[in-house]
C-alpha cells in the first residue's frame, strides 16, 4: 500500500509542476508574447501562404505603441475565434486612401479612421479580406505585434518594417 501512496504522491507532484509551467507560459503569452503560426495568401510576399512560425510581442499593443507599418495580429471582427495577421496602415484620426476593388477598377476611396479604431490591410491587396472590406476595427481587437520570423529557417530574422 505504501508503494502506491508514494507513486501517487510522485504523480501529483509531477502534475503540479506541469500546471505551474503551464500557468507561467500562459501568463507570459498574455503579457509578453509568444509564437504564432501564420498562413494564407493575404500577406504575400511578406508571409508565405503555406505557413510561417513567427514571434509576436504584446507589449507594444498594451502600451499603445504600435505604429503604421507594423505587422499586427488581430481578432477577426467577423469570426471572433479567428486571429489574422495584417499590416497596420493607419491609426485614429488619420486619413486612408485605398483602391476599392483592385481586381475590377482603379477607383479610390478616402476615409478618416474613427476614434479608438485602426485600419489594417494585407500586403497582398488582391487577395486579402481586410479593412477595405470590413472597415476600421476597434483598437481593442489588436492582440500583438509580429517582429521576428522563426521558420522557415532560411528566412530566420527580423520582420521589423522600417529596416529594409
Amino acid at each position, binding site marked *: 500500500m505504501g508503494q502506491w501512496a508514494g507513486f501517487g504522491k510522485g504523480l501529483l507532484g509531477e502534475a503540479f509542476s506541469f500546471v*505551474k509551467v503551464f*500557468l*507561467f507560459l*500562459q*501568463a507570459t503569452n*498574455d*503579457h509578453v508574447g509568444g509564437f504564432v503560426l501564420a498562413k494564407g495568401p493575404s500577406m504575400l510576399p511578406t508571409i508565405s501562404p503555406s505557413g510561417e512560425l513567427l514571434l509576436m510581442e504584446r507589449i507594444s499593443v498594451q502600451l*499603445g505603441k504600435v505604429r503604421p507599418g507594423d505587422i499586427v495580429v488581430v*481578432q*477577426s*471582427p*467577423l*469570426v*471572433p*475565434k479567428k486571429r489574422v495577421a495584417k499590416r497596420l496602415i493607419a491609426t485614429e484620426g488619420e486619413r486612408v486612401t485605398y483602391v476599392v476593388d483592385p481586381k475590377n477598377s482603379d477607383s479610390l476611396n478616402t476615409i478618416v479612421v474613427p*476614434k*479608438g*479604431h485602426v485600419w489594417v490591410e494585407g500586403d497582398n491587396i488582391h487577395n486579402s479580406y481586410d479593412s477595405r472590406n470590413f472597415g476600421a*476595427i*476597434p*483598437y*481593442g*481587437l489588436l492582440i500583438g505585434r509580429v517582429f521576428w520570423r522563426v521558420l522557415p529557417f532560411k528566412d530566420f530574422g527580423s520582420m521589423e518594417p522600417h529596416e529594409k
Partner: protein
Amino acid sequence: MRQWISAAKEVLERASTVAKFLCWIHVTDSYLLSSTVVQGASMLPTLNFAGDVVLTEHISQRLGKVGRGDLVLVRSPIDPNKILTKRIVGMEGDTVTFFADPHLGDYTISREVPKGHIWIQGDNMYQSRDSRHFGPLPYGLIQGKVFFRVWPPHAFGSLS
C-alpha cells in the same frame, strides 16, 4: 562568499514563489473568474450609480455562449483602455429597434446586427452611450459575462 550564495538562493526561491502565485492569479482572473467595480448611471436600475462589485466569468464568451439579455463587460470601441458594462440586446443577424432620442419622442430606428458583431445597450436608455451611438461592436471585444453581485450587501445575489 558562501553566505552571499545561500542568501541569493533564498531570494530566488521567494521570488519564484511570488511569480508562481502571480501567474496563478493572472490565469484565474483572465480565463475563469474575476471581480470588477462597476459604476455610473447607464445601467440603472439594475446596477447602482455609486459603485457595485460584481463577479465576471470568462468562460462563456470563449465558448460562444453569451447571448441576448446577458450583462457583459466589453472593451470600449472608442477608448480601448475603458471597459463598459452593458446588456446584449441583439446578436448577429438580429434586427434591433430603438428610439432615436428617448427624450424627444417615439421615432424609432431599426438596424440589422452584422456577422460577428453584437448590439449593446445600457438598461438606463436615457443616460447611456452604447450601440445606439457607436454602432454594433465585434464579438471579440467582449471581456466577460457579469453574473453575480457581491457588494453592496443588501444587493448580494445573482444578476441573471
